[in-house]
């Protein structure tokens, strides 16, 4: 049984906008990235999968439940983090998340306990007793994730979870998403228009454009490796490039990054040793992938 299956799913809004156009896709559990430009139909798809929105045509099932007829049963096991603001400013995070747990069917005491647990998970401590109106965007996004997780769903639908976050906040949110999918054993669908972000956490990618499915496949098949190795150092990129060149490797310094042309496995050890010899503060070494942007060209 697939996690999510849609068949010729179509959604036309009154006024003639077609948000989804004959979308057929089958997805297995994992961390699934749903990528596409703004207005590509990502949010519409998530809402239909929740039963929040009626499709114009076609069918969809989630966790084996039909979204049209078994919405209530299905929603018990799905957590949803909407893109828009959804937090009342005069309520504390503890109260709010606890209430949301109860509307998911948890008894009062379990709801309170789960709320505290889940808020700690997303990294909210003393702040959770304060009204949410005073929260930063990062804290608000965490509460939104917490309310989606509070009833221990089997599937999480996240709509642009990194919206409005600064780079550090994005990294933390993505780490949380990744942990949710890998450690908690909860299947995740992350909708995002930022391809570079989504490729960091997902193992499967669904690309949509204009409401149509462009491609659905494992991430690895999307992003074949290019023969480039990028080495980021805090300082001394020039010196590193020079040392590598001297050792017979094709290397170019570009700001703080040294780009190395890979022909075989040899440069990996060489980079490690050279960085150590020069005592450079190494940030990361990564193999450059072909950008996902090419998908939409």
């Amino acid at each position, binding site marked *: 049984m697939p996690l999510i299956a849609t068949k010729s799913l179509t959604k036309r809004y009154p006024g003639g906008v077609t948000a989804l156009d004959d979308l057929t896709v089958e997805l297995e559990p994992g961390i699934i990235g749903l990528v596409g430009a703004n207005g590509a139909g990502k949010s519409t798809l998530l809402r239909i999968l929740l039963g929040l929105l009626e499709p114009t045509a076609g069918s969809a099932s989630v966790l084996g439940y039909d979204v049209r007829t078994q919405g209530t049963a299905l929603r018990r096991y*799905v957590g949803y983090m909407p893109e*828009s603001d*959804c937090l009342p400013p005069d309520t504390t995070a503890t109260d709010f998340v606890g209430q949301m747990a*109860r509307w998911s*069917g948890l*008894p009062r005491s379990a709801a309170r306990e789960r709320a505290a647990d889940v808020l700690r*998970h997303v990294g909210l401590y003393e702040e959770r007793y304060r009204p949410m109106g005073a929260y930063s965007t990062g804290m608000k996004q965490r509460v939104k994730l917490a309310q989606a997780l509070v009833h*221990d769903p089997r599937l999480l639908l996240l709509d642009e979870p990194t919206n409005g976050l600064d780079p550090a906040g994005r990294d933390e949110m993505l780490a949380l998403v990744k942990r949710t999918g890998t450690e908690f054993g909860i299947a995740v669908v992350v909708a995002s228009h930022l391809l570079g972000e989504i490729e960091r956490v997902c193992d499967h990618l669904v690309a949509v454009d204009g409401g149509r499915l462009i491609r659905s496949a494992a991430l690895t098949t999307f992003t074949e490796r290019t023969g480039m190795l990028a080495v980021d150092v805090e300082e001394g990129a020039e010196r590193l490039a020079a040392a590598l060149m001297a050792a017979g490797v094709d290397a170019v310094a570009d700001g703080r990054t040294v780009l190395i042309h890979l022909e075989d496995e040899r440069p990996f050890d060489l980079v490690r040793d050279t960085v150590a010899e020069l005592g450079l503060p190494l940030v990361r070494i990564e193999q450059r992938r072909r950008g996902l942007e090419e998908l939409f060209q």
Partner: protein
Amino acid sequence: MTAPAARGPVGEAGTGSIYDLGYRGYDGPRFGRLTVLLSLLRQSLQEAYGIGRGGRAKVAPFLLLILNAVPAMLAVGISAFLNQAGGSEVLEQGMPIRHDTYWSLTSTFVMLFCAAQAPELFGRDQRYGVLPLYFSRVLTRIDYALARTGGLYVAILIVTLLPHLILSVGAILGAADPITGFRHELPEVPRYLVVSLIGSAVFAGVSSVVASYTPRRAYSVAAIIAIFIVPPIVVGIIAALSVPDIARVLLLASPSDVVDGVNGAVYGPLRIGGQTFDVATLPGWVYVMTALGYVAGSLAIVIRRYLTVTV
């Protein structure tokens, strides 16, 4: 010795340390729609009194609850005083604050309670975009509408019943002996129950319709007050233009007058200070049926609102 088993994810020490508490699943019971609906109804009742929302949110509801009960407390106090002073039967007969006059005397407080608190229950979730979070859970849209309206109804019922309970307790304790007092008071109970149950339902229904369609609080408050006080004025003007028969029927378009009519149907014409006001000029059942029509219609409109609102 090998290293202790890793507790958290490997390679996430940077951000992981503060989250490294392990995730626990939930295997306990999960309630169905009905239980969740009743929880939300209860929550709505609490919100209607500002419970769980800081001191300022409690001021308006409790003030109106008390103001609405003050006449009853005064009546009980005066009766007790007169009994002490030798039982002036004459004065007690002339007491204007009675079960049968109570609705007409104090319905303004009930209306203000609706205007102050219905927007709290219906407006906030729409203003702050919380509806998608409700509708993506166990509740259906209809359940949500029923729970919110029901919560407001119970909240108003408390406002309207409290003074009658005070009057009843006062009458029983103030009587020569409590048994006689109880026997004397018992027939009053079903009467004021009918008026309170129906009157509160009409007020709750009409306010819910207005509040669910008016997310902005200020507009919502004004609109609820208007829907209760403008129709009687319009009807009054039409009556003054000497078409009283039309006015009598038009009165049914005014929710507050319909409830006054229900009160008249139960107690007969209103007697205050030796004067009689015949507010209910149509047969009593017409008012009762119209009131029930208001309730059913309001529920249908509120449900429709939540079935069609885009979230």
